[in-house]
């Protein structure tokens, strides 16, 4: 639980940054295009996302190791796109930060990647719970 002590500037800042990892309205909007009789589209999208994420992160780490900045930003860009599609707003934000990295700021990348993985974990946790709640 987060502290509610508003006199502590550190915690109040931290609190402001902890947002909902998933914007549920994005996922809910897919109800409109669900073709009746077809497999549940939302479940399918979540599965696609969860399968895709590790590949992207691994590719990003590999590019980083090779000091290949275009490779890093390309993967971040790609991940930002798919994260937007499942409403993973916070992942999107970190991806955007990574995309904006310059050669000079490449040293910040490992930290950003760690942050990315934290946000991904939070997002996937929520997505799993959404998936569990979907009708069979």
């Amino acid at each position, binding site marked *: 639980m987060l502290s509610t002590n508003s006199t502590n500037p550190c915690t109040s800042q931290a609190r402001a940054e902890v947002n909902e990892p998933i914007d549920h309205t994005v996922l809910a909007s*897919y109800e*409109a*295009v669900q073709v009746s009789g077809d497999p549940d589209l939302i479940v399918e*999208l979540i599965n696609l996302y969860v399968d*895709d994420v590790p590949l992207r992160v691994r590719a990003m780490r590999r590019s980083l190791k090779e000091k290949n900045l275009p490779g890093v930003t390309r993967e971040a*860009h790609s991940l930002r*796109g*798919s994260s937007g599609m499942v409403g993973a707003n916070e992942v999107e934000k970190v991806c955007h930060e990574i995309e904006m990295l310059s050669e000079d700021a490449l040293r910040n990348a490992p930290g950003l990647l760690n942050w990315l993985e934290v946000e991904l974990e939070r997002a996937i946790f929520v997505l799993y719970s959404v998936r569990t709640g979907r009708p069979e």
Partner: protein
Amino acid sequence: MRILIAEDDPISSRVLGTTLIKWGHEVVITNNGLDALAELQKDDAPPLAILDWMMPGLEGPEVCRRVRSDATMAGTYLILLTALSQPEQMVAGLEAGADDYLTKPFNRSELRVRLQVGARTVDLQSKLVQRVEELEVAVAERHRAEEALRHLTLTDELTGLRNRRGFFSIAENVLQTTQRASQTSVLFYADLDGLKKINDTHGHSVGSLAIVKTAEVLLRTFRSSDIVARLGGDEFAIFAQKTSWTDMEHIAARLESSLRSVNEEESNPYSLSLSVGAVLIDRDNTLSLEKLISKADDAMYLQKRGKKAASERGIVELDFSRNYEFQETLAR
């Protein structure tokens, strides 16, 4: 409408595909630029494509460029899909040849209206293509009709004389009459000398004028009851009724005088001269008109050759033969 989706991100591709199908479209899905281009090059290619910007193989803008540089795909409506939202990117995309762009994650009502715009353009384009095709068919139809009409006509456009068809249509009848009656007729075959040289030296319009002048000469020489026709090119045929070999000298004299007066009155850069062959048609004739023309042509050719040989020897021959060959050479 058939829509091509080229998107390497499986989620985006799935959402797009499902959305479009739900809206009643038919989708073709690829996950890279090369396959997208191959799809668009097919004969039954989708008229509208949604292309992701970043793709393996060819990136979206490069696909746009290649589509735009190929006339066969000119009508394809291209929408670029991108998570990049900087205005420079958008400009670069449109400059590459995209018709529109969408930013990811796309808003579905925006997608819907942009597709409507695209569908409208595709529709207009296909109507335009259809109209052009209809017009092409109509023009071809008209050309054919004109050609048929020209074929049906009996008059030579250039000289106003009868054309080959006109000649045959009347001369066949006259030939039969000649055969029944106890009169003789003469079929002349005349050829303008040196038309090729006139064309080569002075141009085809002067050449055409020479043909017109030849027609004038022939009309002056023969009677109005004679059938004067241009068979084609520089070749003329005259069917002179109630004519016998005894009239030849008279006709030759008239031809010579007509030629001389035309050559004198005109400030032509060339001198008009004719080679003429003739064949007598009497009641015993059994030859067809076609055959008679061919015989007169042979006679003309003999004269032409004789004239050439004579001019090479530096002499001018005047030879009136009472044989099947009516030969007439004119001083120039």
